[in-house]
């Protein structure tokens, strides 16, 4: 099987205190660069991970363990301090639904804008537009400005655009629990359908039942380090114990 995501020994340090003014930086320079301008900590510490094409991986861990940070490195939003990340094919990060939505635009405009942001061409959006609206069940509200949508409607439309982008690799961060119960079921069914169609999935979620249902493999992160990489049931039971 071919590799879809190859992460080799990446580390990422973040500063704990940010300096934002020229004054502070200047004082630091004048004092002969003594001390570090800011304290640092490792958000990712020598992480290596290989994901095969068609695999579905659950990324698990407590709050602040570095899951979102790892996804951002795979999508290219962040670059590692050391180590390398390589991916095959188009990667779509569903890092947060509706990241590119603008409240003052209509649902229709937002579908186009968000689709293009996620890497779709004009032709692709034209072709999929009806299917996107159908899936979201927004119906007649599609020409209303999204600021008048209920928060559930907003999420539905955003999620619907995201699942229609059709990339080879899907990165999903905490977005499966959107909408009401029936829509949630529909989203999960859609994700499983993508997995069945041979898409590579990396899913972050605190809903352990859900990831156990969607994924085969589980990877457990603790303080920026991978501490366990096993079938998802084993990882879930370790987390529950």
């Amino acid at each position, binding site marked *: 099987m071919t590799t879809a995501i190859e992460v080799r020994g990446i580390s990422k340090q973040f500063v704990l205190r940010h300096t934002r*003014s020229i004054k502070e930086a200047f004082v630091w320079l004048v004092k002969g660069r003594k001390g570090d301008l800011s304290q640092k900590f490792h958000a990712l510490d020598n992480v290596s991970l290989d994901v095969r094409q068609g695999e579905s991986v659950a990324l698990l861990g407590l709050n602040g363990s570095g899951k979102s940070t790892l996804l951002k490195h795979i*999508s290219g939003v962040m670059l590692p301090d050391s180590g390398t990340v390589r991916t095959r094919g188009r990667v779509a990060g569903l890092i947060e639904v509706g990241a590119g939505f603008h409240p003052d635009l209509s649902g229709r405009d937002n579908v186009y804008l968000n689709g293009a942001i996620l890497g779709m061409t004009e032709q692709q959006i034209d072709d999929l537009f009806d299917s996107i609206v159908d899936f979201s069940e927004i119906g007649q509200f599609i020409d209303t400005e999204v600021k008048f949508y209920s928060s559930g409607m907003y999420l539905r439309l955003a999620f619907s655009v995201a699942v229609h982008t059709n990339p080879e690799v899907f990165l999903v961060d905490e977005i499966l629990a959107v909408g009401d119960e029936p829509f949630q079921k529909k989203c999960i069914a859609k994700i499983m359908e993508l997995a069945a169609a041979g898409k590579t999935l990396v899913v972050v979620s605190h809903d352990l039942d859900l990831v156990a249902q969607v994924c085969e493999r589980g990877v457990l992160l603790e303080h920026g380090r991978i501490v366990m990489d096993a079938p998802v049931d084993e990882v879930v039971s370790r987390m529950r114990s």
Partner: protein
Amino acid sequence: MSTSELTTPGLGGGLRDVLRSRFLLKLLVAKELKVRYRGSVLGILWSYVKPGVQFFVFWFALGVFLQMNRNTENYAIYLFSGIVLINFFNEALGNASRSVVGNGGLIKKIYLPRELFPVASVWVSAVHFLPQLLVLLVACLFAGWTPGVFQIFAAVAGFMIVALLATGLGLFFGAANVYFRDSENFVDMLLMIATWASPVLYTWIMVRDGLATVFSAGTASVLLVIYQANPLTIAVELFHFAFWLPTTSEITDPMIAAPPNLLDMWLPIGLATALLVTILGQWTFRRLEGRFAQEL
């Protein structure tokens, strides 16, 4: 299944990526324009009304009350042709400098060519520049303007210089603003100076004569060259040459109305400087963009 190669994500191709994402650029520009004019009855018509009224006020107050025409023939047209260009520069650079931080929510979450944001800001400003240009053209036609090839060439070059300059500086300050929010204030100050550092409100002859009375002949000529090498000065003079000069009569001496060697020397210098600024801006942007997502 997939035959594509393994690639490293997050390494953009700079402004080349913007060319590849033309559709997204178009949508970003359309979004800006829609949001700007939402809920207004006249909508984009406002961008015709405002400069139209502005020109009328200039013509009336400066020409009729202040009698500025005694020093500079058709002073309203002189002033307006420089002002539209400076307006374009101010809006483009001001918005481009804020564009990266302004779109931080998106940049933090989804990878896309980040150069798109400064470029879209410049583009939006260019869309606002068009109605002003139209008002200027109408005023020029009333004043008996007939364009020639050189005039059109000069106008296009003047516009290009300002657009490239705003893009380059916008990339630079847009990226710097992520690390130091001071830079947007610095840009505001720069823009205030820009209006006075180029011959928008006065003529270049006044600069030449003013420098000659204050400094020795040698120093004055060096300072004048520095003043004239400012790409904004060149662009504004190109606009004067294109729009104002053809409307003047015998009382304006064409030898001093436009600086010497405007087309054959200053124009290439201006374009080259603006291009250099764009390249440097893009280079800085690419060096800084790797840490955008974590700093925003």
